[in-house]
């Protein structure tokens, strides 16, 4: 049986996703090998459509500050943007659940704060909360959790080379895992000017050196 879904706005991606789009009323996990390999761009069409229709975009613990002119350039209605900053994993999970249950509809995206990995039961709470609020719910997680079981309805693995972003379906309702899709990075950004990439801090700190940006998670929390 086909589940409720919403088009990702990217035709190729919709064909990969088991329900023909992002699941609604369920949790989706996006596992990223390096942060920003276009992962946020994948969600931009959904965010633009949702916020223009009055739905809320709730970002829990985004790793950096959303850049207002760029977000707006992709059609997002910033009047519907809510940012939430927490201090640890427990608060982060709590805030996600509140956001999922709090208002109906809309999109919730969480980057879990803290180094602690959430337990299966904690994630199941989020999955249930997403159903309750009829939301599109996304969790960005490190690709190293790929081996762990998840209660989420959808799990995608994202990695990139110079030209392409590779999406692999690790889990989907009624779907065979392992199917994959390659999207041109320069097509992901709607203007086609630049590809969109961000790394997680998968490299050891020593390797990056002082001249490299520290792309560690949650530098925002250090800000006043």
């Amino acid at each position, binding site marked *: 049986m086909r589940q409720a879904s919403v088009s990702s706005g990217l035709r190729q991606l919709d064909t990969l996703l088991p329900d023909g789009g992002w699941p609604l009323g369920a949790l989706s996990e996006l596992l990223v090998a*390096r*942060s*920003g*390999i*276009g*992962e*946020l*761009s994948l969600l931009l069409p959904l965010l633009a459509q949702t916020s223009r*229709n*009055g*739905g*809320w975009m709730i970002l829990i613990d*985004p*790793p*950096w*500050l*959303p*850049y207002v*002119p*760029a977000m*707006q*350039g*992709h059609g997002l209605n*910033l*009047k*519907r*943007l*809510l*940012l*939430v*900053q927490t*201090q640890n994993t427990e608060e982060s999970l*709590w805030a996600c659940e*509140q956001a999922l249950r*709090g*208002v*109906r*509809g809309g999109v919730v995206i969480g980057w879990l704060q803290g180094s602690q990995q959430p337990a299966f039961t904690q994630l199941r709470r989020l999955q249930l909360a997403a159903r309750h609020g*009829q939301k599109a719910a996304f969790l960005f997680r490190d690709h190293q959790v790929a081996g762990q079981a998840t209660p989420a309805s959808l799990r995608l693995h994202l990695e990139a*080379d*110079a030209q392409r972003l590779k999406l692999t379906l690790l889990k989907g309702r009624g779907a065979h895992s392992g199917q994959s899709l390659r999207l041109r990075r320069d097509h992901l*950004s709607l*203007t086609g*000017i*630049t*590809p*969109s*990439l*961000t*790394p997680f801090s998968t*490299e050891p700190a020593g390797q990056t*050196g002082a*001249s*490299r*940006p*520290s*792309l560690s998670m949650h*530098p*925002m929390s250090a*800000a006043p």
Partner: protein
Amino acid sequence: MSETWLAIELTHLALDLARRAQAPHRDLPIALSDGKAQGPRILDSNPAARRLGVEPGLALSAALSLAGNLLVYNREPAAEQRALERLAAWCYQYSSAVSIATDQHTLLLETGGSERLLGDSQRLAQQLEQELLTLGYHSRAGQGPNPEAARLSARLGQPAPALNAISAWLRPLPLSALDLDPGQSQALEQMGFRHLGEIMRLPRKALARRLGTALLHRLDRLTGLRPDPQKLWQQPLSFESTMDLAAEASHCQALLFPINRLLRELCGVLRGCDRGIQSAHITLQQGGGEEVFTLRLQQPSRDESHLVTLLQERLERLRLRQPVRRITLRADDFIAFDAAPEGLFPDPENPASNPLDPLLERLQARLGKRSVYGLRGIADHRPERSWQRCSPQAAAHSPSMPHRPLWLFQQPRRCAIEDYRVLAGPERIESGWWDGHDCRRDYFVVRDSGGSTLWAYREYKPEPGWYLQGLFS
């Protein structure tokens, strides 16, 4: 139109003030002392104390020897008066005319006008008793055609009839029903009177001469011969209530019950004056100092369950350094309030009916106000100055630049450009001389060796060098 009055006698007000912080199941023995320096005696005690033999009239020293863990409070007439005033304000939910009869800790409500709306006054009397009990106050309510009859009805536990039948109702009552002072009842007894009917038969002049005009006037007020105008209580548009904790609370969760009671009382007062609040301040007095926190609401409200949800979030986050001895709830700004008609449920198709406020308040209550916000663009060419935190929904339109990165570093970071491959650029950004932030930069899209795309710039002034400022995601 005939009047109907409700009298609510707060039968244990002083004791209730001492014990209302305690959840009913806790049941610690509590007693009230007259506080006299010489031979203090027990005035009132709760069931737990009475089970140990601590009865009113007992010497305090004897009480303490019966119950070693007895918590003893002294009467505080000023606190009792303040409580009566709060409860009078609370009673305005049910009446447009409330007055305070301080002598017997009694509140008088004229309900004639609202009778049809509220059902018959007897049912209202029971409802008021129940609701006061949930606030921690024991009471008995009565109703009658005038204030004096309503008070008598409360004392007797039976409703008084309409005015034309009141004399017949009074006659068979024992004199003790009038709750006269001991001297007076002794005098009446010596004269051989047992029932009200016997003194009501006396000639008025004789009655006044033998028993004083006060009793005559009281009988006249009961039978409606003498008008009994009441001074209405004027409620101030603020609220403050304090509770002493019978047992010091060292866990935040132990504060939930007492503060919940205070909030419930506050919400009743707000309904009484048709107002709402946007903030309520809670002071926790501890051994050495005090802790103050505020519950904030996005919209004026008087919804108790809503406030309690906020309270729970706040308490979970609170770390008590010392046990709490006393709690004060204060709300200063009562705001005119248009309650949404009840039964109006949000329409999922209409975003305006799906408000963010309750979620916002819950998040802010636990995470702090600064941790939950929206963003708005401001007109400045320098990216690090092109945004501002704002309250959600307050975002204003800003320029659209889809070719810029989705993530911005709050602080640009110095970098060595040799480590990166340039994909696009430059884009010149030059601005700021007018406000002392003179700068000139060339921006580039660059990629690092790991495949990430970043936003870098070369600054010429004021701080020459290469910097990273954003991330293309």
